[in-house]
């Protein structure tokens, strides 16, 4: 029977069975992980294709007392993205495994699967304390992943991530405790129904606590000061995970909770200004950076600011735009960080001049396409989202935001064209870079999907429209959870 519990149970089960799997030769763990991720991806595709009504998977006791996993259009959108990118990352890692293997590789696979399980759990869960638990599991696995190489820089990144993450979890758990004390429930649907009965001050306090808690993880201003250090210290493979999966999961959960708890809030302006400040600031700082991982870290922060702006509007058009940007950004950042992993391993340098030394026409074009997509050039995937968001804000009359987005894109263009210029400069190149077939096919698949979405975005429009309708409609969510009986 198909069930959404497999998304969480199987990766965790994999983690526990690693000691047994490692007895089956040296490839046992790696191949099992790959098969697991492939099957989870296929499972998510099958679930998405038959998803006519939302599926609520009840665990032991029916809601509101028990925990339920809700697979509706929007949560399955995220689950599909997460399983797809984890699969892609695993295949890429398998392609370079013969040349450069992680020390103690089994641990890497355990952490990767733990991160996948917790990101999916965050998105699917309908119980706020359960969200806290997954928040922490994702946190712990990302702290270990970012300090994976155990060099001084990696440990520094891990420590910084851990300190900020511990602070974040305190504020989040404080908010959750206040909700339980006053409403007597942890179920998202019941909280959503009764949240308006709380006094305005208490609502504001809880919203602030949740904003601070998630702000550290969603990487918005003023909580994002250490994020670039974390990206610099971790390996690019891990950065790809952070940028494409983890931060997106937190972003979704934050706005999901906001839409559910306070559907008619009046702090859109506050959220918009947070988004604008984090976007502009990140893009300005990115220009001066000389470390290539830092450049893309700041570019991620800028894009997350843009996503924050899109989701703050809380209209279905803005959410559609946001989901398009999110998808395009995830694909492009996956390509960039995966190729950076190979480039940095090959040329042993993290300075942006490494792009000048890089001798691989294939990588050059792949990186060019993904950077143009991030910039939002027409015919690439990033264009659709940027166009839709400008259109939405134009109709709503927010011309300040439009000019901020255009300004940010212009600043982005400065440093992306600097990088592109470095890549296509006719100077002495380094050694020729060998890329294995698996790695080439992964990068090619992602790049083709960038071009395909850019040329024909309507293929996703049904799915994304449904997802945005589901995300914005808190009444449907309440009914599907509370209507379930065992």
């Amino acid at each position, binding site marked *: 029977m198909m069930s959404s519990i497999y998304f969480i149970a199987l990766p965790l089960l994999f983690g526990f069975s690693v000691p047994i799997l490692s007895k089956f030769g040296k490839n046992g763990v790696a191949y099992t992980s790959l098969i697991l991720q492939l099957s989870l991806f296929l499972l998510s595709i099958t679930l998405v294709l038959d998803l006519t009504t939302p599926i609520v998977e009840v665990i032991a006791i029916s809601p509101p007392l028990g925990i339920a996993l809700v697979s509706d259009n929007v949560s399955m959108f995220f689950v599909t993205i997460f399983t797809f990118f984890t699969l892609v990352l695993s295949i890429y890692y398998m392609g370079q495994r013969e040349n450069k293997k992680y020390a103690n590789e089994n641990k890497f696979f355990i952490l990767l699967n733990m991160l996948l399980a917790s990101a999916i759990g965050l998105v699917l869960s309908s119980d706020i304390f359960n969200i806290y638990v997954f928040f922490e599991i994702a946190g712990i696995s990302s702290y270990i992943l970012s300090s994976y190489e155990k060099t001084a820089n990696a440990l520094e990144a891990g420590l910084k991530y851990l300190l900020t993450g511990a602070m974040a979890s305190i504020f989040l758990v404080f908010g959750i405790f206040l909700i*339980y004390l006053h409403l007597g429930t942890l179920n998202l649907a019941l909280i959503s129904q009764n949240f308006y009965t709380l006094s305005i001050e208490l609502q504001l306090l809880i919203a602030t606590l949740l904003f601070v808690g998630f702000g550290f993880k969603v990487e918005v201003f003023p909580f994002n000061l250490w994020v670039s250090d974390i990206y610099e210290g971790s390996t690019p493979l891990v950065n790809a995970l952070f940028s494409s999966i983890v931060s997106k999961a937190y972003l979704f959960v934050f706005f999901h909770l906001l839409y559910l708890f306070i559907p008619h809030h009046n702090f859109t302006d506050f959220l918009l200004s947070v988004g604008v400040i984090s976007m502009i600031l990140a893009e300005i700082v990115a220009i001066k950076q000389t470390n290539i991982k830092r450049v893309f870290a700041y570019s991620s922060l800028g894009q997350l600011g843009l996503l924050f702006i899109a989701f703050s509007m809380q209209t279905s058009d803005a959410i559609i735009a946001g989901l398009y940007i999110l998808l395009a950004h995830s694909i492009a950042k996956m390509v960039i960080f995966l190729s950076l992993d190979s480039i940095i391993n090959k040329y042993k340098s993290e300075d942006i001049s490494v792009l000048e030394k890089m001798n691989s026409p294939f990588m050059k074009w792949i990186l060019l396409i993904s950077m143009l997509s991030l910039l939002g050039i027409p015919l690439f995937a990033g264009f659709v989202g940027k166009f839709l968001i400008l259109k939405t804000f134009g109709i709503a009359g927010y011309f300040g935001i439009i000019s901020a987005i255009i300004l940010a894109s212009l600043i982005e263009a400065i440093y992306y064209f600097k990088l592109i210029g470095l890549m296509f400069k006719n100077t002495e190149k380094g050694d020729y870079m060998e890329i294995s077939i698996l790695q080439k096919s992964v990068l090619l698949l992602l790049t083709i999907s960038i071009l395909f979405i850019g040329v024909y975005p309507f293929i996703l429009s049904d799915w994304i429209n449904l997802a945005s309708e589901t995300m914005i409609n808190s009444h449907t969510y309440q009914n599907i959870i509370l209507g379930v009986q065992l």
Partner: protein
Amino acid sequence: MIETLLNFLNQEEVLQVIIVIGSMILFFIGLFGILTQRHFIKIFISIEIMEIAIFIFFIGLAFQKGKTAPMLGDGITKFINMNDPIPHAMILTAIVIGMAVLALGVSMAIEYNKLTGITTIDKMNGLKN
């Protein structure tokens, strides 16, 4: 004299006020520690103080005076006049998670110290900003 004081303190409202004020003082001590201290271990201790303050706040307010533990036995055969067990379960989970994060943090700090000899976060600037 002492008896009246004890009776006064034993009122539910007074107890709750004491718990709220006390735990918030503890919370801000922790926050102050995080903002002023620079040593890794001291920062971890401050984080833990903040966490514990919130646990005390929650468990203190969730506990209602005069109600019993939600267990049958000792002549109690029905679930009447029981305290809500869920806050206790939540606190236990949160304590375990908090300790796990703390242990991970301390072990990372030790590894980092072995490599570089640094013990304070203001000297931790290998990653340039």
